[in-house]
């Protein structure tokens, strides 16, 4: 049974399809990186994993649970972090974590709490209001809540956005270790070297359709062993015209 499974998923906004028949299976123990330009449907797919967005057609399952029919069960299974951190700005960091963990009924040990906070470099910030933190630190707070919950499936949208080098490294290590312990991990990022470093498989989505899928090595071989960036740009409609336009702007 896959950890995350999208079966022929379609989604329309205002009559326009934004997700077009996506089939995607992320196995347990696998880190899958979803790449795609802005507006390609990644976030919509991710939101479906916790039933916040419902597809017009198709099924979304997490650990076998239908996320459309039983979103509460799906939310208990998935550790989901949206692109923009969802936080209460008037709560202190510890108050926020206490709230989230209480909702999930998770009681982490003191040692685990300390380890997570230190790993993400939040030591100095735990007594602050979340609203006083930078974007990157807010993201760390939401990641800390997921780390403390230790869910079976991770779905992280723009997982590394705003993170400093040290925290990004800690998150990379965490994602790999989660996969090794049998969790299914689905992440999106625009940072291709990170994608290459952590992914067992990469899926490229463009205009709501999956246009390529495979290990980083397999994808690179599509363009005769070039960089992942070249493959990505070719598949997502980037043309040399754009480069010429940029050049024209600078002259």
């Amino acid at each position: 049974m896959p950890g995350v499974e999208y079966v022929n998923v379609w989604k329309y906004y205002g009559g326009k399809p934004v997700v077009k028949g996506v089939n995607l299976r992320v196995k347990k123990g696998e880190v899958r990186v979803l790449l795609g330009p802005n507006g390609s449907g990644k976030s919509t797919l991710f939101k479906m994993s916790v039933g916040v967005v419902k597809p017009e057609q198709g099924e979304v399952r997490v650990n076998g649970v239908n996320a459309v029919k039983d979103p509460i069960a799906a939310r208990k299974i998935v550790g989901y972090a949206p692109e923009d951190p969802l936080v209460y700005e008037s709560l202190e960091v510890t108050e926020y974590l206490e709230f989230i963990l209480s909702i999930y009924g998770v009681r982490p040990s003191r040692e685990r709490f300390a380890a997570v906070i230190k790993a993400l470099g939040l030591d100095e910030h735990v007594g602050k209001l979340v609203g006083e933190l930078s974007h990157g630190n807010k993201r760390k707070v939401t990641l800390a809540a997921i780390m403390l919950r230790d869910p079976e499936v991770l779905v992280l949208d723009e997982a590394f956005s705003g993170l400093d080098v040290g925290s990004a490294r800690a998150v990379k290590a965490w994602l790999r270790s989660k996969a090794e312990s049998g969790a299914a991990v689905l992440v999106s990022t625009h940072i291709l070297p990170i994608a290459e470093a952590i992914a067992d498989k990469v899926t490229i989505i463009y205009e709501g359709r999956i246009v390529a899928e495979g290990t980083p090595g397999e994808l690179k071989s599509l363009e005769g062993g070039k960089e992942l960036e070249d493959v990505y740009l070719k598949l997502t409609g980037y043309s040399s015209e754009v480069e010429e336009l940029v050049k024209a702007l600078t002259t």
Partner: protein
Amino acid sequence: MPDSLTLKVAKNLTKEVTYRGFRGVAASAFTPVAKPSEGKGRVNVSIVRSNVLGAIFYSIVSLSASTPLLVTDYMKVPATDAFSVSLTVLVGFAFALSLMQVTPFTSTFIREGLVDLLRLLPLTDSQILKAYLTALILYWGGLSLTFIFIPFFIVATYVTVNGILPGTYLLLGLFAVVATLTFSYSLGIALGSYSYAVRRRASLRLMSTAAWLLSFMMMFLLYRASSIMAEAAKTLEPMLRTWGALIPFVGPLFSAANPTLMLGSIGESALLVMIAYVLAKRRISKVFLGGIEYAVAAKAQPVRKVKVGEAGLRISSLIGAMIRKDFKLLSREPRRLANMLFLVLLPVIMSVPVGSGSFMTKYPTYMVLFISSFLGAFSGLASEYVFYAEGAGALLLYHLPLRKCDVALAKALACSLITLPISAAVVGGLAAYFTGDVMLTVIGVAITALLNLGFSFINSAITMSMLPGTPSEWSEYSFRASMGTRFVRSVVKLVVLGIGVGVPLVIILLAPLMGASPTMARLLTIIYAVASFIAGLVFLRVVAGSKPL
């Protein structure tokens, strides 16, 4: 008139404050600017639009306040007293209103980093300041405030020209108006600029909540006073004749006959204006223009030291965690909390004169039953404010494993935990003091508790059922917008709540007419309270529903 650049910046600034304010708490009934959802999410701002409704409303209040000046002969009140008392009420009104306009505007301006945004643009300090003040006065409804005084002074001038009112009073009145507006604007700017510190410091939060509550109560009392201005002039006149000189800004009107006292009174007012003005100026140069960014200022606030290695996390039950979180959110939004407490204190203000009058000694049972029912049901309606406290944080709730009925229950309980002790204490205190009947006191408190919980549940469940279909922020405005689109449910809500508050009145009025004994009235009210409580539980389950949020 400000130049076109200032007007442009001010207009956009107001749009931004409106947009961001509706997500939070800046907007209110006293900021008559366009709502963000009008024109599909666009905020439309214009000088006319922002001031016209306020100008009409305030003109009516002003005209009503000027009536005593025209009927001094009939009322047998000296014109000087009528002028002074009416102007005192209007000045109080203007003071409360301008504080309620300026403080949230400034607070949003600072807290949302709009001042930092303006400072990134090629604008001088004086241009920023001009744009801020223009936005406040022209686009945020400040101009309309002057209409509290304009019709009144037109009437006063007419009376003066006809030799009924001495010209000195007109001059002293103008002094009172200018001093009041300068003071309240300066104070509002200074208070609003401390918004970042308010979230952090409990003492400031307490003071801020108390100040808001006082403003709301003052508005309510003044509104009542202005609607019965002729009677108010008669009632207040002897009190103001003795103590009036001490009241800032209008004091000189009450001491016009005594030049020494009048000079002292003018000096007191001038000193207060000076203090507020200097404070506002210092805050403007420090927070607006002085290079201290909001983020830096916020960081300078004391942070609770937490030693991570030693700290554990306090994990509670799902409902417990929701309630704790709501308490934290409410306690850090003084205006929101004051709004909620006002809804509890409003029926208290209305009940106390009834409860302490001769009715209480003549009909103790009926009065206790009525007050307990009224306070219980009314205070339960405050549960809506716990929803509003979510603001943008509500988006998070849609991603958590929560059922609608759980959220509705938590909101209702959070409301009752705040409002019930106050209502029960008032009912218990009034019943015990005026009747001395222990059993009646216990019954009164029990009825208050059952109705508070019942109506909290009902209101919370209906509010939950009216949430926007897609994940969205929760604020007064988003709820009002969804109520508009769900017209039938809105009507149901109003009818249910109307019945809830009206039924005890019917029982209490009909019981004596139908020859029912006080014991029967007690029994009927208890049955009604228990039924409301059970109905509340049913509403939670059926109307809020067990579907995921």
